C-alpha cells in the first residue's frame, strides 16, 4: 500500500478521508473528460445558443446542422479516409517488421544486441523536426511528396520503437519451453515463431496494434510537412485548417473534433486495461 493510506485513527477520520478521496477522484475525472463533453455540447446546440452570453451549462436546444455540414464537406470525408489508410498501413508494416525484430531481441543471442536496442529506442527521443528538411529534399527527388507513402514511411520509423518495445515485453512473457518443444519436433526458428509464438502472443500483438494505430492517427508534423494537397492530408492537418475555412463557424469545428476523437475514446474505453498494461510495460523495469 502507498504511504498515502491513513494510519489508524477513528472511524470518523477514516470516513472523512474516504469522502475527500472520492471528491478528489470525481474532480480528477471531471477535469479529464470536461473538454470533450463541453465541445460535444457546443456541437449539438443551435447557433443562437452557441453564442448566448452567459453560456448555458446544459444544452437547451439541439441541432444536427453542424454534423450535416461537416459530413457533406468532401474535404473532411477525404481526410477521414486518408487518416484511416495512413494509420492502418503504418500499423500493419510496423507489426510486421516489429514482430520479427522483437522476437529476435527477446529470444535469440546475437552480437551487438545491446547497441541495437539502444539505437532503436533512441528514435523515441529523436526530435522529428530535425530531419524534415533533409527528408523533404530527398522525398522531392524521388517524387514522394503528396503521397501516402511519404508519411507512412516516416510514421513507421517513429512508431517502430514503440512497437518493438511493447512486443519484446510481451514475447518475453511467453514460455520458452513451447518453442523448444516445437524445435525438437523439427520446426525451424521461423516456423516456431509462426506456429507457436504468433498465436500465443495474439493479445499482446493486438494491444501493440492499438497503440501503434493511435500513434499514427495522431501524427501531425510529417503530414503537415510532406502533404501539401488536401487529397492526401489526414484529419490532424485538415481540422486545424477548418479554423481558417469556417472562420467563425465554431460549431462545425467542434463537430469535426468530436467525430475524430469519438472512435479513439471508444477504443480507449473498451481496451483500457490492455492499453495501460502496454503503456507501462517498459517503465516499471526501467
Amino acid at each position, binding site marked *: 500500500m502507498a504511504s498515502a493510506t491513513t494510519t489508524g485513527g477513528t472511524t470518523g477520520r477514516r470516513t472523512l478521508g474516504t469522502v475527500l478521496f472520492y471528491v478528489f477522484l470525481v474532480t480528477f475525472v471531471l477535469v479529464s473528460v470536461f473538454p470533450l463533453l463541453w465541445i460535444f455540447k457546443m456541437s449539438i446546440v443551435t447557433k443562437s445558443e452557441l453564442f448566448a452570453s452567459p453560456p448555458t451549462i446544459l444544452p437547451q436546444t439541439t441541432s444536427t446542422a453542424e454534423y450535416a455540414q461537416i459530413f457533406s464537406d468532401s474535404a473532411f470525408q477525404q481526410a477521414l479516409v486518408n487518416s484511416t489508410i495512413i494509420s492502418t498501413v503504418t500499423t500493419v508494416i510496423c507489426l510486421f517488421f516489429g514482430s*520479427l525484430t522483437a522476437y529476435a531481441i527477446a529470444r535469440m543471442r546475437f552480437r551487438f544486441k545491446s547497441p541495437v536496442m539502444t539505437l532503436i529506442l533512441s528514435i523515441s527521443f529523436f526530435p522529428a523536426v530535425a530531419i*524534415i528538411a533533409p527528408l523533404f529534399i530527398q522525398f522531392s527527388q524521388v517524387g514522394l511528396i503528396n503521397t501516402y507513402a511519404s508519411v507512412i514511411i516516416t510514421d513507421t520509423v517513429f512508431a517502430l520503437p514503440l512497437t518493438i518495445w511493447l512486443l519484446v515485453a510481451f514475447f518475453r512473457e511467453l514460455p520458452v519451453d513451447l518453442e523448444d518443444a516445437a524445435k525438437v519436433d523439427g520446426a525451424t526458428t521461423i516456423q516456431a515463431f509462426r506456429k507457436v509464438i504468433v498465436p500465443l502472443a495474439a493479445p499482446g500483438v493486438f494491444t501493440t496494434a492499438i497503440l501503434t494505430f493511435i500513434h499514427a492517427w*495522431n501524427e*501531425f508534423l510529417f503530414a503537415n510537412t510532406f502533404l501539401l494537397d488536401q487529397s492526401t492530408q489526414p484529419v490532424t492537418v485538415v481540422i486545424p485548417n477548418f479554423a481558417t475555412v469556417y472562420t467563425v463557424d465554431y460549431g462545425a469545428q467542434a463537430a469535426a473534433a468530436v467525430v475524430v476523437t469519438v472512435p479513439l475514446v471508444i477504443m480507449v474505453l473498451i481496451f483500457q486495461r490492455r492499453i495501460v498494461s502496454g503503456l507501462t510495460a517498459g517503465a516499471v523495469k*526501467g
Partner: protein
Amino acid sequence: MVLPSLLIIVIIAFFPILYGIVLSLTDSTIAGFGSFVGFENYTEMFQNPDFREGFYNTVIFTVVSVAMEFIIGLGIALAINRAFRGRGLVRAAVLVPWAFPTVIAAVMWRLMFQSQVGIIQYLAGAMGIISDPILSNRSLLLIASILVDVWKTTPFVALLLLAGLQVIPGEVYEAARVDGANVMQRFFRITLPLLKGAILVAVLFRTLDSYRVYDLFWVMSNRELASLSTFVYEGVRISQLQFGEGNAASVFIFVTAFLIALFFIRVLGMRTSAEEE
C-alpha cells in the same frame, strides 16, 4: 531479422541528420545545394530575435509543464495506488486526454478559450481575472498552452508512476512503520528512492517531448507562438530565405536534445533497458 527495422531507421532517421548537418554548413536552398559557408547560418540564427523567442518559449514551456505534470502526476499516482470502487472508470478517464491527437486537443481548447463562445474566456471575464482576449496575447497563449499540455499528459505521467509504485513491496512500508517512521519520512526515504527509476523515465520522456513542442503551439496560437520546432518549420518549409537558419536550428535541437538525454542517463543515473541484457 533485426536488419530490416534497423535499416529503415538508419536510412530515414540517422542519415538525414548527417545530411542536415551538411546542409546547415552551406548556403543551400530548398531548390539546390549551395557552397560551404562555415558556421554563418549558426551565427545568424543566434542573432535572430525569432530564434531567441522560440528558444525562451520552449525552455519555459518545457520546465513549467514537466514540473507541473510530475508534481500533479505523482500526487494522483499516490492517491489512486490502492484498491477502490470505480477504479476502471478512473483509469478510462485518465486515458481519454492521452488518446486525443494533440492538434485536436488544441482545437478543442482553442474553442474554449475563444472570446465569443469560449467558456474559459467567459468565466475569466466574469470573475474579473482576465478581460483581454486570451488568444491574442502571447504570454496568455503560452500559459494556456502549458495548461493544455498539463491536462493532456499528466494522466500519462501518473500511470507510469503508478506502475512504479505498484512494484514497491508493502513489507518495506510495514517495516518502516514498525521502526516509527512517519508519513513524510516514509515518502522521502522509501517511496522517492524506490521510485527513482520510474520517475527518471517519465520525466525524461516528457522533457524531450515538451522540448520538441510544435503542434500544440501551431494550432493553439494559430501559428503566432514560436518554439524551436516552429522556427525550424518556418525556416525550412515556409520562408524560403531562412532555409540555412532553419537547418542550423534543427541541428541545434538535435544536439541539445541529445545532451538532455545524456544528462539523464549519465548524471542522474537512469538505467536504459539495453543495459539489462
